[in-house]
């Protein structure tokens, strides 16, 4: 009966006991665990980037030409991934993307719906709109975290968004560390990211935005 069947099976397996190489098991197990954790971290980072790509800030599209120096004071208006130009949080992740820029710490993107334009960053920032001269132009600055990945000092990412003047050839952004970089222009908007050695959370870093129109000297984008 079943007892006999069991005895037969036990007879069939009667041999020197199997003893696996414990050290090899532990070594391989640890290595595989490390790989899985790394993979999980990468997957999580990618997911965050995708979600953040959908967050947006709305931006008023008033434009002007009166140049003015950038306001260096810190203005905190938003604590969300996506917000409009006034710092009002938006759930704009499903809106069509106009453009995006990215670095190792995340993505900043511009999205728009039928009536609203929004700026997004992948990290929760404490900065939002930088006030501008009404009717002349507008720049949105956000600040987000930058951690690890070779950064040994406190760091943050300053993102500068704005409306690109019609026919503009180039938009440059000068950040507080004196670096001048070229912004990405697409769909009538520009965006620029700069990793700085300034703590996050913390006050917004001052920026100066310049743009170049054909046949005209470079001008500073107005900010209040």
């Amino acid at each position, binding site marked *: *009966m*079943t007892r*006999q*069947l*069991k005895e*037969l*099976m*036990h*007879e*069939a*397996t*009667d*041999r020197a*006991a*199997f*003893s*696996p190489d*414990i050290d090899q*098991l*532990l070594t*391989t*197990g*640890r290595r*595989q*665990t490390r790989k*899985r954790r790394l993979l999980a971290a990468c997957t999580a980072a990618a997911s965050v980037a995708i979600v953040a790509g959908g967050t947006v800030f709305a931006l008023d599209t008033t434009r002007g030409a009166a140049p003015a120096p950038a306001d260096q004071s810190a203005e905190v208006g938003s604590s969300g991934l996506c917000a409009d130009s006034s710092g009002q949080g938006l759930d704009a992740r499903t809106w069509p993307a106009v453009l995006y820029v990215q670095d190792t710490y995340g993505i900043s993107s511009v999205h728009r719906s039928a009536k609203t334009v929004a700026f997004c960053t992948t990290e929760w920032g404490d900065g939002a709109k930088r006030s501008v001269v009404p009717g002349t132009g507008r720049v949105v600055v956000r600040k987000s975290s930058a951690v690890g990945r070779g950064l040994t000092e406190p760091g943050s990412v300053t993102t500068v968004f704005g409306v690109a003047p019609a026919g503009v050839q180039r938009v440059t952004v000068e950040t507080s560390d004196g670096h001048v970089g070229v912004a990405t222009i697409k769909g009538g908007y520009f965006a620029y990211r700069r990793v700085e050695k300034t703590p996050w959370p913390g006050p917004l870093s001052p920026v100066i935005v310049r743009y170049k129109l054909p046949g005209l000297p470079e001008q500073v984008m107005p900010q209040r």
Partner: protein
Amino acid sequence: MKSQSEHDYVNFVTHHANGLCNTAYLLCGDWRRAEDATQEALLKLYRSWPRLQRNGAIGAYARKVVVSTTLDTFRRRSSTEVVGGETYFSSTADPADPMGRLESRLLIVQALAELPTRQRACLVLRYFDELSVSETAEALGCSTGTVKSQTLRALEKLRLNPAFADLNDFAGLGG
């Protein structure tokens, strides 16, 4: 994994690896393949060890992983391959002597090899590992009804095997 947790894992492996390997052997009929499958299953167990320690039922999970790993390995190979291989059973005893064959330790493995995979797994888990019907169903990821019917069919086939003709009737023990 924390050192204490790893110590527990080593203890588990030390005490259960051989039993798991025996189960794998009866499922695949090849010691080398059984050892490989057990090793692979133990690695999977290592990765899940912290969670298993929190949730319990380590033994059941280990057996489930060994069974699935062994059967997966078997599936990954040729679908026409006979468990244990043709040459593996060449040392079976004289067919003219049924009792002599019965004494052969390979005979049961050969008989198991002739069973469909799930029937074989049901027999091994039910009568070698002495699992209940529900535990067997859990290990195989199927219903208890399937376990009962597969076990019954397996026993009927074994009963028809000439080598086991002198044994008591296995049939009717599927439940």
